[in-house]
């Protein structure tokens, strides 16, 4: 026990003495949290909107005004012809082009139906889908208003024509994107910092030759590993704390669930990450190698965590792979506890899988650490 304390003391001294590392550990992640949470959004806004008005009637102008009034669209320009509209889309000046055919108003009144052409730049398929929904919503809204108008003129009897749905958005009533993203990005920061620091730390001692000196001492493997990893565990918990404070103060993210539960889960989760970091450092000889391997796993873990893309929409095999992704569990738990107020029994599946993961990874790490080559 005393031996472990000597190692912990040494590690903390080295961490806090390294003026280059301190900002990397504490300042950069928080900057990332603030910047990414504000910037990384899937809300489709500021859509560049163009139209071709072949009709020049009161109805066509009213339709364009509907788009102008929407906060999603920025009405860019009207095009005299389809050729110009296509050219503008090719140059990236517009994302959505609405084509109002000639005699739109007249045919609508006469035939009671009309077709509109909508062209959408679909290089980003997800965004195009969302844009299509917006366009459809606006035209439907316009259509209903129009119907009422037409019916008043032609038909005194107003009929209930449409079934209206009234959605309730649970757990994030205002559909605030930040509420969704902040817990997830906090997860990333805690993971990345603890993984990189632990992964590089022991390799660094290999590189400078001090590890050999340590291996010649009677120190026990578990003493060395606990002493080495404990400081990073503390740093991870510290990052979580600062992150939660920022989430509350700056982003006003609701924290419905219990804080001790979040800390309990995170304390086990960080053990998984540290075990992975140590495992990596046992199989690498330089910090550079350790860095590359850590990056490789981080990128896969992040992209397959459900943080940016829902796991349910991944192919089956990919969904199976995500079972081995610790970040996935952390993201789920953070969102559940913070936004839904989930309790211990709700997160028990994630908690027990993470605990098992921690045992396996640290077992492997201790096993693969060799004092003798």
């Amino acid at each position, binding site marked *: 026990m005393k031996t472990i304390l*000597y190692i912990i003391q040494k590690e903390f001294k080295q961490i806090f003495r390294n003026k280059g590392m301190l900002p990397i550990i504490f300042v950069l992640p928080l900057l990332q949290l603030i910047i990414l949470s504000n910037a990384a959004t899937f809300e489709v806004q500021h859509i560049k909107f163009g139209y071709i008005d072949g009709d020049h009637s009161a109805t066509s102008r009213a339709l364009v005004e509907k788009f102008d009034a929407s906060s999603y669209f920025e009405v860019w320009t009207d095009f005299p012809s389809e050729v110009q509209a296509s050219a503008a889309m090719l140059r990236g000046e517009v994302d959505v082009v609405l084509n109002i055919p000639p005699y739109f108003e007249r045919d609508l009144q006469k035939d009671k139906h009309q077709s509109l052409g909508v062209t959408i730049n679909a290089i980003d398929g997800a965004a195009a889908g969302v844009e299509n929904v917006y366009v459809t919503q606006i035209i439907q809204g316009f259509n209903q208003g129009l119907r009422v108008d037409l019916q008043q003129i032609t038909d005194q009897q107003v009929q209930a024509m449409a079934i209206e749905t009234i959605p309730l958005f649970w757990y994030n009533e205002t559909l605030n994107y930040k509420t969704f993203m902040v817990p997830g990005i906090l997860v990333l920061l805690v993971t990345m910092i603890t993984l990189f620091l632990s992964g590089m730390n022991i390799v660094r001692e290999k590189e400078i030759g001090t590890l050999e000196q340590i291996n010649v001492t*009677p120190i026990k493997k578990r003493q060395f590993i606990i002493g080495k990893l404990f400081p990073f565990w503390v740093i991870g918990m510290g990052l979580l704390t600062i992150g939660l404070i920022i989430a509350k103060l700056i982003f006003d993210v609701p924290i419905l669930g219990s804080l001790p539960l979040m800390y309990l889960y995170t304390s086990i989760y960080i053990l998984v990450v540290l075990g992975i970091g140590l495992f990596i450092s046992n199989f690498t000889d330089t910090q550079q190698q350790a860095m590359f391997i850590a990056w490789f796993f981080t990128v896969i873990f992040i992209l397959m965590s459900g943080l940016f893309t829902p796991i349910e929409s991944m192919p089956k095999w990919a969904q199976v792979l995500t079972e081995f992704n610790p970040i996935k569990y952390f993201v789920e738990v953070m969102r559940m506890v913070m936004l839904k107020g989930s309790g211990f029994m709700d997160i028990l599946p994630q908690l027990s899988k993470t605990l098992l993961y921690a045992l396996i990874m640290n077992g492997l790490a201790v096993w693969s650490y060799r004092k*003798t080559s």
Partner: protein
Amino acid sequence: MKREKVIQVADLTKRFGDFAAVDAISFDVYRGEIFGFLGANGAGKTTAMKMLIGISNPTSGQAQVAGFDVFTHAEDIKKNIGYMSQKFALYDDLTVRENIRFFGGIYGLSRGRIKEKSDALIEELGLQGAAHKLVGALPLGWKQKLSFSVALIHDPKIVFLDEPTGGVDPITRRQFWEMIYKAAHQGTTVFVTTHYMDEAEYCDRVSIMVNGKIEALDSPKLLKEQFQAANMNDVFLKLARG
């Protein structure tokens, strides 16, 4: 009276694939001796030493260090030996005092003993003014003397020095050897590898390794007689060139 053997090696071998880096070497080292372990670069000195200090598993053969078997009791050996590697292996970002405290601590010295040792050691090395400086800021010669002292902090039976004087000036080398003599005089066995043949003359006995084998082993005086050489340098050249 027969002197106590603190290192006993018989047919010790280390193979990397087909290549025998250390090829069936046998020798004994006695208590309080300064044992010079010589050889050209790549002769296998460091590999042999790593097996003796328990950080490299031998392929075959037998070896006992401080009364413990290297195959089965490597961790017991580690309690009884000190080691100073070719590469400077103290922490550059810790101060002189912090380094001493750390290594004292992991060798299980008590707090009071560490304090005592630190003061004595700093005094002896004349580092009073630099005790709170980072080790990285010290000149190489001081670093080497400090790592030797740290290797002795737990009063080991045997201290292993791997080219301890590489790259330091002649005055520091001389001081370093005075420290070695002092340790040997106090009963510590010193096992030292070196490239400097004048240093070989300071050893009680010297072994010379060529291509993984020990080709000669005796006191410097007898080796010079045996090879009819004026100094150890000539002995070494005759052996190394075959």
